[in-house]
Each structure stands twice: as C-alpha cells, then as structure tokens.
C-alpha cells in the first residue's frame, strides 16, 4: 500500500513540473480536468476547481448547492480501477483525480398524460418496460450521489409499490448517473418522477379542509375583509398588524 502511494506521488510530481506555475496560497493538489493537468486548492469542490483553473462553465453548473443535478461528473483516482460518480458542486477534489463533467445525459422519457394513466404496475409496464429487465446488480445505487436506494425503488416499481418508489426516490436530483451506469438501460430517475406524480395525484389522501377553503374563497367569503384591508390607511393597517395574535 505504501509503495503504491509513493508511486502515485512521484507520477503526480512529474506532471506538476511541466505545468505552468501559479502562486499557491493554500495547500494544493493536482487534478486532471478532461485530461489537462491543473493545480487547485486541496479543499476545493470539483466545480470550484474547474473555475479556479480558469474555465467558464456553460453546461455543468446549475444551482451549485446539490438540488438540480446539472453537474454530474465522473472521475477516477490514481491506482484504483473504479470509476466514480459525483456532483461537481458537492464533491471535493483529491490529489491525482482525473475528472470529466457530463454536459447532458441522454435518457428516454415517453410522453404521457397524467390524467389518463392509472397508479398501478401496468403503467410502468407500458411506459418503462425496461424496468423489468433489472438484474438487481445495484450499480445504480452505487452511482447515486445522493446515496439513495435506487435499486430498491426500481424493485418496488416492478412490484407496483408506488408509495415505496415515491418515498425512496423523493430526494432524487435527476442527475442521471444511475441511468448512465445501468446495464439494463433503465432510466431510474424518470421512473421515480413518474411514481411521485402518480402518488401525489392518486394515492395521497385528500385534505378536506383544503377543499373547504377553496370553496369559501370561490363563494367570496373573504371579499369584505379584503376590501376593508385594502381601503385602510397605512397607520391603521400597521396597528392591526402589530396587534395580531400569534399561533
């Protein structure tokens, strides 16, 4: 192990010598951005490193906080056979990391009308038949930057357990890394999205109070008070505001 590490350090150093020097303020590491070598701060995220190196990102940055899935990135590490996946905005660089962003991910999604489909397994069979090719290899789960149990929700879809798919895929960012790695060519994130919509529309228990409130508004229950408030002078409204009770 120690020998391996030493070898890694040496190779990185050799490449460093060839690169143009920057004045390092912090501790630096060497990364390969799409094959090109750069020295970047050791505490940078992948996105921070790409920008530090001087790239103006067009594709590959969105919310920058781990919600939108725009910055899917694949990388390898020295002396390690594995390919890793991560979001550029939340994954930290490591010395010797070789990385490439995926500017867009091709993924099939059939066109459907949510009002004309039913919340059952037949819907998955019709819209995403490839789901049933799942070989339970768990590659999708390993690829998920959110650490979701992706394979488990695909298995739940096969059983028609929509609530389970909704629950397990709730935090999905649709980055598509599962889909790009899946040997059965399933588009997991779109399956999850369909399940959430089916659950929200058909299976979530209805709120009676919501229905009642909408009816009250339609019947103009609040018109009079609204008109009073709108007519009120600022001082009177202010008084009312500061005197209101808190729940």
């Amino acid at each position, binding site marked *: 192990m120690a020998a391996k590490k030493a070898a890694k350090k040496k190779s990185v150093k050799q490449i460093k010598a060839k690169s143009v020097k*920057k004045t390092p303020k912090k501790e630096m590491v060497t990364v390969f951005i799409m094959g090109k070598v750069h020295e970047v701060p050791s*505490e940078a*995220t992948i996105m*921070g490193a790409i*920008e530090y*190196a*001087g*790239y*103006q*990102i*067009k*594709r590959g*940055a*969105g*919310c*920058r*906080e*781990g*919600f*939108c899935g*725009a910055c899917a990135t694949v990388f390898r590490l020295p002396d390690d056979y594995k390919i890793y996946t991560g979001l550029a905005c*939340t994954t930290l660089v490591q010395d010797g990391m070789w990385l490439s962003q995926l500017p867009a991910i091709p993924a099939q999604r059939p*066109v*459907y009308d*949510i009002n004309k489909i039913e919340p059952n397994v037949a819907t998955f069979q019709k819209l995403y038949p490839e789901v049933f090719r799942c070989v339970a290899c768990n590659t999708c789960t390993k690829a998920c930057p959110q650490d979701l149990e992706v394979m488990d929700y695909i298995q739940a879809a096969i059983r028609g357990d929509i609530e389970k798919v*909704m629950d397990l895929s*709730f*935090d999905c*960012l649709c980055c598509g890394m599962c889909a790009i790695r899946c040997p059965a060519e399933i588009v997991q994130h779109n399956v999850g*999205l369909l399940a*959430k*919509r*089916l*659950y*929200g*529309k058909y299976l*979530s*228990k*209805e*709120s*009676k*109070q*919501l*229905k009642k*409130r*909408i009816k009250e*508004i339609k019947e103009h229950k*609040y018109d009079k*008070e*609204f008109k009073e*408030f*709108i007519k009120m002078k600022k001082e009177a*409204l*202010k008084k009312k*505001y*500061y005197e*209101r*009770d*808190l*729940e």
Partner: protein
Amino acid sequence: MYPEYMNESLKKASQSRNKRFELAKSGKPVFPPMSAEEREQVLNKFHPDYKPEARRKIHIGPNKGEKLTTEVVDILESHSRIKPELFDLTRPDYETDILIIGGGGAGCAAAIIAMENGAKSIISTKLRLGDANSMMSQGGMQAAVTPQDSPTRHYLDAIGGGHFDNKSELVRVLTEDGPEVVKWLENMGVVWDKNEDGSLQVLHGGGTSRKRMHSCRDYTGAIIMRTLMDVVRNNQDKITVLEFMPIIELILDNKGQCGGGILYNLETEEYFTVKAKTTIISTGGYGRLHIRGYDTTNHYGATGDGLVIAYRAGAKLLYMDSVQYHPTGSVFPEQIAGFLITEKIRGAGGQPLNKLGELFVFPREPRDVESSAFIRECLERNNGIETPSGRLGVWLDSPLIEMLQGEGYINKNFPAMHRQFIRYAIDITKEPMLVYPSLHYQNGGIEINEKCETNIPGLYVAGEASGGVHGRNRLMGNSVLDYNVFGRRAGKCAAEYVKSVKLGPLTLEHVSNYENELKRAKIKTDLIAPVLLPSYTPEDVKKRQLTARYEGTLR
C-alpha cells in the same frame, strides 16, 4: 468537523439547550418579538441596503433620477450585446403565440396555463429547463388553508413583512389564490407533506402569525419544479423548449407593443429572432451579481437579465432599491459558504445563538429584521464566531429540533440539509450550523398589476423578476407561491391577449435609442448586459487572457 477553537462556544450552546428547550416547550415566546420602532432601528443601522454606497442614482430610462441598488444601476447603464441594424426582423426565425423568457417555475406554470387556454408558446431559457431558484427552495410554500387561518390573515402578514409597501391588489391575489395553487399542484402530482388523515402539514415561517408553510420534506422547490417540467415535456406539440438560448433583447412593434425577442445560442454564439404575439418575462432574480460582495444562495444563472431587457424597452421598475439577505446562509465549511439553510429549520424550532450560547433575537422575525439582528450581533456586539477564513457567523441550533419534535425528525424532514453537512463530518442532529446572512432575493422588479401586465402592451412579467408583490421584504414561502400564482395568471392573461392583438412592423429602435441615451448622459462603461453568467475566473488567469479582440467563437 468544526475546528477545535470553536469547542468552547459549542459547549456553551449545548449547555443552554435544556433551558431553552423547557421554554420553547412551554409555548411562551422564546424571545420577545421586536416592536415597530425596534425593527426600524436595527434595519437602519445594520441592513446592508441602508449603507450609503448601497444605492446610486440612475441617469437614464424609465426610472431616471431614482436611487436604485448600485449593482443594478451598473447592469442597467450598459451596452447591448447586439447592433440592431444587423437584424432583419421581417423574416423571423421562430413564430409563436407567447414567448416565455425563463424556464423556471413561473415560466413553466405560465406555459401550462397558456396551453390550457389555447395558446402555443416557446420557453427560452439560458441554462436547462428548471435551472432556476424555483428548484432550490427548500422550506415551503405559504397558503392559508387551516381553519384558524384565512387568506386575509395571510394578507396582513405579507403586507406587514413588506413594510406596508406592497401593492395591495397583488397581495390580495397572492393570498387568495394560495389554496387553489396547493390543489392545482397536487392534481399534477406534487407530493405534499401530510398527516395520517390527509390534512396538510403546516409550519411557521419568519413573520407568519399562523402555521401555513406547506412543504415536500426539504425538497419543496425540486418536487414542484420537476412536476411542472414534466407537464411541459409531455406537451411538446404546444410548448417548445429552447435550452441554452437566452433572450438578450426584446423586440417591439411600431406601436410600442412587445413583439418577441432576440435569442442568443450560448454554444454556437448565433442570434435568432422570435416573433411572438405576446411575451412573458420570468427570468427570476439577480443573486449572482453578488451585491455588496455577499455570497449568494442563488443558482448560476441569476443575473437579472429580464430587468435589463425590459428596462431598455421602457418598462418601469419598482422597489429596485431593496435586496433580500436570507438570515441563514451557511458560512462553514468554506465549500458551502452562502448556501441556503432553510428557514424551515427555525419554523421547526431551531434557534440562532451567539458565541456565548445565548438566544439574542426572536427566531422568526421577518427576514430583513432577522438578518440585521445577526449582523448587529456579529459586528456591533462582537458576539459572532469567526471561521478559519475570517467569515463571521452565529450558531443555528438544530439539535434543539430533535428535542422538540422527536428523534429522527431531522433525517425525515431535512434530508437535504443533513446531507449537505454530513459530507463535512458535521451531524446537524447533534451540532448546530454556523450561519450569516446571504444574498437571497430580489424584492423589487418590473412593475406589474394583478394581470401581470406592465406599462408595455403585450409584455407580462411573473415571479421574482416582477416588483410590487412583496413590497420591500418578502416572507418565507411567498416566492414559491408567487411564481405559481403569477405564472398561472400571466399564462392566462397572455393567452387571452393573443386572441385580439395585431402586431405592426417589428423594430429594435429602442435598443439604438437607449445607446444614444447612454451617450447623451455621458455614461462611460464597458459593461455589456444581460450579464448571462457570472465569472469566477481567478485574477491570475484573467491576466493571461490577453486576446486583443473577440473573433467568432475563439477569444
């Protein structure tokens, strides 16, 4: 993991926790809320907007002579990207009923409702569909649904939070459409947090007098945005989506009606013309302008583009002197500086503490007041905690939530927040977060009425790009509601307008006129706007970018 030197302060926070828990459980206010005078005082002295250099006078355009946020004046007093005379507007590259500029929540909602009302649309968006602040809202959406609540109460909260500057007819529409929006979203498949009996779960937000925050765990925006996008994508015959194709100028006709816009392909650097019977601006806000040098919670494309193109075309802006700083932006670790920490944390009982472990402000004041109180605690009272890189912050005590709401509550209700910090070995169920105000929201914008109309016929605006709904300070959960309420309204009214409008010959004369106005006012600037994307290129790289002239796609 927090550095060792913070341990003493962390210990104080944990020592005071039991006592604070007892008080919170008793139902009494955990800290006295501020009076009107106290609010005014802390705002005047500590809110970044009130610093003299925060605003400057604008010399041209519809708001000429007014004092606006300095960075906003910078992008408004700027050159166009194009030479108008190079464009042939008689043969447009695209034609449609409605041009929707911006593919966030408001834009998608508008497209869906316009479609239902018989109008076809093009959504032009700078990044991908859904790359918007809408995707990032965590905490929730306000709507007055519970029996003890009412739309008029919601009205009172919103207008008081906005310092009574809000346009009252807009606030009425916002609050009265709320419950309907909850239902509309659920009908499309949004999964709201609910109780066993189907009733909607609600929490407090800053400045709310009733619990009315509806949520989808802490992925509220992501769930709503992806649902709206899915509907848009299921209707490709009626809604055309053009990604990485921002609109960089509006087109008017010879009668001054809005007749479309100029598209810019970010990748091929080509320009295209769109002729549209009517246009909706839903471009969102401006966090990436980093006003006053603040970190921001905003997405990559939030550069205020809609303001610039609308202003050049003659649209009036309202309250563009007012910026919202979210009280709880993250300050540690460095990698997530500025990231949003949802107000829902305080809605669920989380408390801000100073370095002595003491609560120093009512945790749910309106955002500008709460932010100013944080700044006062750090700068005047010297009770902030300093990070290794020199940022200041106060604690946001999340472990208290687990005591109040039960163990496991954070994992279930704040998965995004938990995930954000555990990557850096900070477990927010056991340790507090370190926070400071972060640039969050454009309170003002292009002035609209309750039909989303502007002073330019045929130009509609919805969402954060608009001004007037929130006065000079927006409450939590009212922006998600805003983009839905006004996105829907813009879609409906624009679809109606399409039926009767007759466009004359198209022109870009307003762009040339604006350039002349710049000259006459003797404004010297190199700035070209819309800004489109912020630059985070380090100075030493910039120094080597020495191309003398831009030639095609190669600098």
